């Protein structure tokens, strides 16, 4: 027998044995493999050893050396496998006697979740972030300058009516809500009030829109501005399935040289396309935006925005080009820059997306509700 053939048979048994020992799942398997490979009477290794006698005499020393190496290797592989099974058996003492039921539940892990409104806001922020809009926040208690005046809402505008706003009560009566619509905010024992720089008392109120933040941002920095403001807003409404006196708004603002309504429409289309999830590769998935003429004091032109939805149009919110009076109020030059703004009610979109039919459920905080999102 040629040395070459002998070595080949050694190699083959080595490979086979290592695999068999490593694969043994329990002691029975391992014992069977041991008998097959290392059995003293008819194990494969024994058979190979018999072949050693037939190797040419001159090659015998080398063949013997190789045989011994492989033998040692196999014995230690067997010992390793024995050890492995012993350890596994130690940690599962019942393993051999008791049946194992893999369908028993795993150890429970307590998982929390973000509120659906937070999830909606995050997702919107993230998409607008990709479109270059940075998120900003501002105070929820506002003065009438930021909530009305700077937004081109005149002193006589019905939007200032005390019945449509949560004015804060103060010790002294303050002029504006009264002159706006008569029903003066009632004085209470509470002495909270606000004076502006020139010492005049200014009414404070819970902001009725997040546009207030846009004013603060523009007052704070020169154009270009590309932000979304978001947060809680408050309007007197009797709570029912679609109304709650507190809700969330997201408003986008882009002011720069050369911003047009085409930019507005395009940004909104990209936003809706991304938000409503499809890649828009097929025409059926493609989102389109429709503008309807509307009126807001702080934009001109003003539009209501619809997007195509289930072969109809879905109202998304108001938008428009920032009114030159607003730009002037924050010290921008409307001859140099233009801008657009748009707003979205977070609850409405969140509810529609998740099939929530009662807005009050969002603020009930029943964990069975929260755990579904």
């Amino acid at each position, binding site marked *: 027998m040629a040395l070459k053939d002998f070595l080949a048979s050694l190699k083959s048994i080595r490979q086979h044995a290592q695999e068999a020992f490593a694969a043994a799942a329990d002691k029975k398997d391992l014992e069977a493999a041991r008998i097959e490979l290392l059995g003293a009477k008819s194990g494969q290794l024994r058979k190979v050893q018999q072949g050693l006698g037939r190797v040419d005499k001159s090659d015998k020393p080398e063949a013997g050396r190789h045989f011994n190496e492989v033998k040692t290797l196999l014995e230690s592989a067997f010992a390793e496998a024995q050890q492995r099974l012993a350890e596994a058996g130690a940690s599962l003492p019942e393993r051999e006697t008791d049946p194992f039921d893999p369908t028993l539940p795993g150890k429970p892990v*307590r*998982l*929390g*979740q*973000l*509120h659906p409104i937070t999830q909606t806001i995050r997702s919107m922020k993230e998409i607008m*972030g*990709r479109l*270059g*809009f*940075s*998120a900003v926040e501002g*105070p*929820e*208690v506002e003065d009438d300058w930021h909530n009305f005046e700077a937004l081109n809402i005149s002193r*006589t505008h019905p939007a200032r009516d*005390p*019945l449509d706003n*949560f*004015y*804060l*009560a103060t010790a002294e009566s303050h002029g504006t809500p009264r002159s*706006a*619509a*008569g*029903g003066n905010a*009632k004085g*209470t024992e*509470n*002495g*909270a009030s*606000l004076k502006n720089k020139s010492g005049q008392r200014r009414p404070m109120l*819970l902001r009725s829109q997040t546009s207030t933040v846009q004013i603060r941002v523009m007052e704070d920095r020169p154009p270009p501005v590309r932000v979304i403001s978001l947060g809680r807003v408050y309007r*007197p409404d009797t709570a029912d399935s679609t109304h709650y006196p*507190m809700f969330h708004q997201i408003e986008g603002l882009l002011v*720069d040289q*050369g911003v*047009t*309504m*085409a930019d507005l*429409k*395009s940004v909104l289309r990209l936003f809706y396309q991304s938000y409503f999830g499809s890649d828009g590769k097929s025409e059926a998935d493609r989102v389109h*935006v*429709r*503008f*309807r*003429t*509307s*009126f807001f004091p702080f934009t001109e*032109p003003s539009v209501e925005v619809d997007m195509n939805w289930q072969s109809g149009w879905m109202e998304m919110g108001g938008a428009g*080009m920032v009114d*030159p009076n607003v730009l002037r109020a924050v010290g921008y030059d409307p001859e140099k820059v*233009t801008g657009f703004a748009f707003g979205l009610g977070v609850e409405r979109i969140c509810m529609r997306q998740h099939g929530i039919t009662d807005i009050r459920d*969002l*603020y*009930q*905080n*029943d*964990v069975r509700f*929260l755990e579904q999102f």
Partner: protein
Amino acid sequence: MIVSWNWLKDYVELPMPLGELTERLTLSGLNLEGLEKVGDDLDPRAPERWTDWAIDLEVTSNRPDCLGHIGVAREVAVLWNQPLSIPSPQPQEVGPAVSSLAHVTVESPSLCPRYTARVIRGVTIGPSPKWLADRLRTLGIAVINNVVDISNYVMMECGQPLHTFDLSKLAGSRIVVRQARPGESFTAIDHRQYELAPDTCVIADAERTVALAGVMGGTESEVSTATTDLLIEAADFAPLSVRNTARQLSLHSPSSFRFERGVDWPGIDWASRRCCELILEFAGGELAEGSIDIGVPPAAHPEIKLRFNQIERVLGITVPGEQVRGILTALGGHETHACDHCVKFIAPTWRADLTREIDLVEEVARIHGYDKIPEDASVKLTASARSHEDSARDTIGDTMVAMGFSEAMTLSAVTPEWIGCFRPWTTAAPLTTATPVLRRANCLRQSLVPSLLAARRTNETLSNPVIELFEIAGVYLPEIEEMPKELRLLALTSGGDFFTVKGYLEGLLRTLAPQWQLLAESWEDRLFAQGRGCRLSIAPASIIDGPALHEPKLQESGKPISPGQVSPGQADQKQLARDFPWGVLGELSPWGLKQFELRGRTTVAEIDLGPLVNAVQRVRTLDLLSPYPPVHRDLNVVVGESVRWADVERITRTHAGPHLERIEYQETYRDPQRLGKGKKSLLFSIQLRSSKGTLTREQADQARERIVTALGQELGGQLRDGK
């Protein structure tokens, strides 16, 4: 504004299908709110069959001109490029001069910029002609008698409210427009009596109030079947005054709705003539000569310049100059100038909303059609960065979620009781809203904890077994003469005990600011079980430990301090708690549980996110890892009960030397027999590691020895059993 399809056809041809009409009106500013088929043919017994469409259009507050059929017809005419035909009423005057039959005085011209009156004598009150009654029925307006119906009809035709008085019921045949007198009351045509505020604008005769100006007429002077002589009022009343009166008395009428939005000055006289013409035709009578007309006309609308390039600048599309001029002219504008780069227009009197160039741009845009504006413009790319605070707050929310909490959202306003039951952040009286935000909740909250406890109560009521809630929201702390301070807080409520919740907060801190440490000082509050409440603060480890660990410095030569004596370290910690306030943590007391009707154990915590966000190291840098193994030493130190772990830890940290990697508290053991009364033993271990080589047993023992010595000197601590 409900519009009748049949009626519209009086002024403009409607060759288009109804759907197309409403679609284009919707896009150009008159949003379709509803559509209803009306008419006799819905009732097969009706003798004369007629049908109509009631088209309900939403009219925005800037477009009072569309609160009448003519205004809507004008929009249709412009959109479909159709001629508009408007009647020009020329009622025949036959009687004596109106001034000999009635007198009008306007005492409050600021509340009534214009008052006109015409007089018709000898009318016959009766039913309206069917076509007129049908049109009113389409609009859902009650049909009363020919005179009243005609005044309503004209209002719905042109948008100008009118009022007809029974002239014989006006004392002295006088009309006085004035403010209500103190204590004056008034019975309206709804037969209810109203107390009038002194600034209410009223129409009075020589003796008493006969109508609330622009809002509602009175019973005594209303047109009845016996009426023969009429005074027809067409006027302008100040929007604000009308709105206040309507609001105060909850008396909203189609008339007040229109005055609140403003009426067209020339349209006032048109409406008066139109009304008289129809009354003469359908109720008979003789019209007195002339009209009483009091008021100073407003200044003429100014010229508005529209530069053609502004259209592209704002809309992003070009509209040919000819088309721009055509649109503005069709809308009623008067062109005073046109050249190759601009046009000048005077807006029609009924469009008080058009005063600026941008207003004309909008007119062009909405008539030309927003559908012409592309939705695939290439918007400039910009980088956007998330603010530090924004991303920190997301991490905070994510960490809370990872620790098993559900995020709650609760109302920002609470009841006064909730303000009073937990006040860790301020003692100032809360800001209150003039009307409650919801039910009795009229206070801007100063802590989120009561709201979360109420949410917990809701869940207990629903038998939800695990209630782990957190909320991130603002509280409003009043400042004198300033905007309130709005703190952004994180509050949580858990069924776990004090240390479980403390562990959550430590976990949060470790995630966001691993170089900072949490400090706790006992704090009593009735919401918290006795001894189970604390104030929390956070500070950089380098400040808490003193510089010893972080930059070696000479130690004060250690004079032994007897147990119980305040060490400088302790004083510093209290100072730190004041310098770096972070929040509160505690298990609820029986009182606290009772306030919220809670049954199970409840622990709450509330922290200020400000310091946490500031502490966040936005970009982490790697601490090189030592390749050498650590060495551990256990310590079991017996100290007096008054000694706190925080001091043991601080002293350990200070004296362990430069190789200290970790201190791990294990447990506290108490046994009066073995340890002695008032003693406890603290079990903890330290882990040491050097970056320069494997520490020897001697080095580790020395570190342990230093710690034991220092604990002995500063706190009177001794190794248990000398080990």
